[in-house]
């Protein structure tokens, strides 16, 4: 694997070039809250972002997305697919847990038959990863074998190695092309950068407050499907769906029409298995009528179904659902309890 060094001021001018040549999405703060947004000014970008409220998955799978338009003229009905973006997108500043989440989403959306919208966006996105600089109390990426300083899944990956320098790892052919195109911004790697990265890793991993283990868990979970634990847990759940909206691996969506019978568009938007309407039939029958069933479905999806279906973990340990659940339902605690029950 190739690696380089980039100095902080060079990184800012590189971002300026990116903004000129590409459409850049990067972490910015709005009223103190971190979001991935289109940016025009490099200075707006958080270089050591930390955890965003909504994950960067919105770039590949937007919260609402028009699928196609329809129009009726006399006898004729035409469907208009939306055209692809002209400019490539650089998604800058993605942390290791979120990088892994893209692989989880790939397994769903790129499985045949491929989701054409996701595939087009995926194909048109250059991913620039950034190592974490701090660990938040809810982070537990290491549970899933993710290191806060590794850029697996990114095209190029940056690690702040101190003294105003970033280690740049070139991880894919696309990353290599990018590097070649902007060669003058980079310097040769220096002795000590790799060691600095390792030291950073060690100090970050030590700060992960709650270490939970999931190995072998998914096969055993079927045995506790009927356990009263789920009902007990659900008594404090509000069914608000926040945990699913902020999750980088949740992929459920609804499809709806907006328009008249003559003209309009069909779009999709994020949906949540925590909502009663999600499985409600027209007849009134609801296969998961109780909140306990829906909450159980969410945890089974993350901790078992995803493994069974795609052979990948369905959670990446980003901690968003832990941080944002209004009643402190904590997936790490659930894992701990479940381990005791199976």
């Amino acid at each position, binding site marked *: 694997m190739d690696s380089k060094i980039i100095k902080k001021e060079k990184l800012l001018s590189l971002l300026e070039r990116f903004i000129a040549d590409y459409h850049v999405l990067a972490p910015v703060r709005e009223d103190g809250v971190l979001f991935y947004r289109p940016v025009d000014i490099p200075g707006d970008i958080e270089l050591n972002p930390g955890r965003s409220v909504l994950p960067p998955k919105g770039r590949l799978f937007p919260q609402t997305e028009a699928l196609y338009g329809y129009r009726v003229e006399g006898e004729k009905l035409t469907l208009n697919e939306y055209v692809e973006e002209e400019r490539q997108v650089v998604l800058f500043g993605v942390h290791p847990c979120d990088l892994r989440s893209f692989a989880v989403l790939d397994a769903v959306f790129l499985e045949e038959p491929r989701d054409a919208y996701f595939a087009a966006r995926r194909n048109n996105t250059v991913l620039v990863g950034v190592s974490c600089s701090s660990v938040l109390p809810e982070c537990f990426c290491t549970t899933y074998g993710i290191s806060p300083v590794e850029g697996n899944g990114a095209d190029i990956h940056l690690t702040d190695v101190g003294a105003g320098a970033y280690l740049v790892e070139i991880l894919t052919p696309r990353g290599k092309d990018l590097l070649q195109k902007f060669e003058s911004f980079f310097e040769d790697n220096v002795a000590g950068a790799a060691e600095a990265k390792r030291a950073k890793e060690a100090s970050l991993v030590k700060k992960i407050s709650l270490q939970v283990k999931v190995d072998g868990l998914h096969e055993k979970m079927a045995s506790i499907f009927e356990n009263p634990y789920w009902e007990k847990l659900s008594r404090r759940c509000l069914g608000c769906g926040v945990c699913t909206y902020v999750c980088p691996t949740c992929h459920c969506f609804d499809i709806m029409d907006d*328009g008249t019978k003559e003209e309009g568009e069909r779009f999709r938007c994020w949906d949540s298995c925590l909502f009663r309407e999600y499985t409600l039939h027209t007849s009134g029958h609801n296969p*998961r009528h109780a909140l306990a069933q829906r909450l159980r479905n969410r945890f089974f999806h993350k901790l078992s179904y995803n493994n069974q279906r795609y052979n990948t973990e369905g959670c990446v340990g980003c901690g968003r659902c832990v941080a944002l659940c209004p009643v402190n339902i904590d997936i790490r605690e659930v894992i701990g309890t479940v381990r005791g029950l199976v």
Partner: protein
Amino acid sequence: MGVSNPLLPRVATVVDIIRETGDVNTFRVVFDDLEEMAAWNHRPGQVAMLSVFGVGEATFCLSSSPTCRDWLEFSVRRAGKVTTALHELEPGAKVGVRGPYGNSFPYEAMRGKHLLVIGGGIGLAPLRPLVNFMLAPENRKDYGKIEIIYGGRSYNDLCYKEELFRTWPEAPDVTVWTTIDVAEEAWQGHVGFVPAYVEEVKPTPEDKFVVICGPPIMIKFTVKALENLGFAADHIYTTLEMRMKCGIGKCGRCNVGARFVCRDGPVFSLTELNQLPQEY
């Protein structure tokens, strides 16, 4: 994107609407692009998404046989938004169709065997393509006897009356038993619920597959009756209904345990169902 966007429907025209019952119409649909029509292939038991633009999409089984190459048929019960909009259409109306989705009845494994078909109400819709596929001249020799036990609330609630009372009974090696829930003056046939009728007819399990579709309660009691008659769980098939949006394993909505009904179903054997969580 154009080449393969599985979420994009193909434009089709409703060429005929057949009134089956008070709330079920069969829509005969032809793709506007004749190449699409020629390229379409479905297997008995598969479903498709039907769109009324401006209202939405909903899932329906293909009720026409795969051997019919001229059109597709969907039998739709008026229930909510999309189904009501469909019922308001007139011949000539434009709709969207995408699919086919899902697995199918195991018509390959059924070769050389007899078939018992048990349906209730609109539950005959997914079974009809299987029967008509087997009765097609090119396939008939591959399959044994076909027995059909079918019931509805009243005579008016029975679907596909032409086939039920004429085409199928007149076909060689096909027996049809029909029943209605409550007696009616003009009705000469059997009166009673389907599961009880199955117990009366006493079909034998030898070399036979069973396919059942209908209201969940009917399925439940029919399965009990069949088990008492000695039918094995891996020879009994039914279809599951979950809400569906994408039909292609992306939107997550149709999961029962780790299975997606749109990809791994809608057809399941009783053996498979017994391994799934009871969340359907």
